[in-house]
């Protein structure tokens, strides 16, 4: 573990070198502990894969003090043993269909699997949220079953519809809003991943440390739950 200042506004914690699912609960716990102990000076925290970036109010504390405080809090976490914190389970219904899963057919062919097998492999696992970024509420989930892992398109699509569920390498994600994107699209969810009205403080459905399971649904369930098929 390494704690160091990266800017006048932020201190970064590195928990490890390589992406490792076991790091996520530790990082999630660090987020809670830092918020609980240093809440009055912490402005924001960005957990991501192997690191945690802590933004603080430099008008209240200086960099050295921040590094010291965060190191102290983390030592206590490590001393207490990592234990197991489960993280919240979020279920995301997905209509896996060729009409909205533009790459489902090609993926099945390329992997010599049936579409049913792809759906089973994608929805069988519980995934961890490694990071939120790229767009508001966009969660990077992993790790996928190797049998359906596939690189992103070399040329991104100009517009991927809101709710599209994609695969890139060993990760999967839902596009919270329509945007350009290079992930392989296999289905679509009716669930709102990001609420731009911002009425509740939590606009993004997912947070780092949450666990996610995809639930296959039919076209009629998709429509019933407010999903938008292509025109």
């Amino acid at each position, binding site marked *: 573990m390494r704690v160091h200042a990266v800017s006048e506004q932020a201190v970064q914690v590195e928990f490890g070198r390589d992406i490792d699912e076991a790091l996520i609960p530790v990082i999630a716990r660090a987020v809670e502990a830092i918020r609980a102990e240093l809440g009055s000076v912490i402005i924001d925290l*960005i957990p*991501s894969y192997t690191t945690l970036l802590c933004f603080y109010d430099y008008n209240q504390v200086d960099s050295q003090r921040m590094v010291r405080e965060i190191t102290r809090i983390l030592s206590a976490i490590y001393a207490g043993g990592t234990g197991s914190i489960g993280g919240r389970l979020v279920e995301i219904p997905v209509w896996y269909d060729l009409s909205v899963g533009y790459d489902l057919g090609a993926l099945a062919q390329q992997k010599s699997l049936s579409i049913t097998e792809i759906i089973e492999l994608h929805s069988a696992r519980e995934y961890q949220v490694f990071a939120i*970024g790229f767009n508001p509420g966009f969660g990077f989930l992993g790790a996928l079953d190797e049998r359906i892992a596939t690189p992103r398109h070399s040329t991104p699509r100009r517009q991927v519809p809101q709710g599209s569920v994609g695969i890139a390498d060993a990760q999967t994600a839902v596009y919270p*809003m329509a945007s350009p994107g290079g992930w392989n699209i296999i289905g679509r969810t009716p669930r709102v991943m990001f609420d731009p009205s911002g009425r509740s403080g939590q606009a993004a459905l997912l947070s780092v440390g949450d666990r996610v399971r995809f639930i296959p649904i039919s076209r009629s369930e998709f429509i019933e739950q407010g999903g938008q098929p292509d025109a």
Partner: protein
Amino acid sequence: MPELVVLHPGWQSTIQDAGRSGYFRQGLSEGGALDEHAFRWANKLLDNEPNAACIEILLGKFEAKFTADAVIAVTGADMAVTMNGQVLSHWSSHSVQRGDVIRFGQAHSGLRTYLGIAGGWQTPRQFGSRTVVMRENLGGLDGGPLKQGDRLAFKAGESPARRAVPAALRPDYQTPLTVKVMPGYQYEHFGVIARRTFETSEYIVSNDINRMGYKLTGPPVSADTRKLASEGIAHGAIQIPPDGQPIVLLKDRQTIGGYPKIGCVASLDCARLSQRSPGSPIRFEFTDVDRIQAERRLFDRFFNYSHWVDDSRQIAWP
């Protein structure tokens, strides 16, 4: 409600305040005025709260009409501003009458001008801020830059004294800029030659610049090619992509990214950088966090606590 009616939006004019705070974790960019110095002065001239919304006008050609009397301030890039054809002095506040038409010419020093109004522009807040982040379609009137016919509300009856920023405190955006850099992130993974190249060479602002970041061109900085997990990105982070040409990440940057970073530019130098046009020379100077924090605290203290005295001709430190 008194309004400003946009007659011509110019290249890109957006509503900006101090930006969103506390939403990085949900993947939202902070956004906010790129040149914090000029932005803070616009509000200081008007006795506004420090993060009242201004219009950030990129390159000029903005034109608009007031439907009521008001007091406005113009700071930042020099764009030859006129009111009903009469030249308006720069870095100053001015009275405006109902029906007046303000026109911004083309920027000839700097890139971004701030148009503030007493009380601030009254667009809705999203996630605690009026700032427009175009990529996220958030803020302003519709998440995008201003368009012809847009109407921006402002508060009636605000009438602070007319003022000007003391000449000695107005920056010259055409002087060569050296930005202070804190080594950090993957600094230690860069070799000695890469670090020396970076801190001794002159870089040039490229045409590839926007509110997300500034790409510079110059002697390539060879980066470590080790695969890096995406990590949180601080304001001013200097990304070194495989071509070795540095990119300084600014207010509309994405919250996480996976390119190696050699350090972070001081926030006040990011503000200075945001006024430099393509072709401007830039140098990097490594320094430590204490010096950068000291400079930034002084800046915040000045804008948060100084006040106007002597009939508004002078400004006093707290």
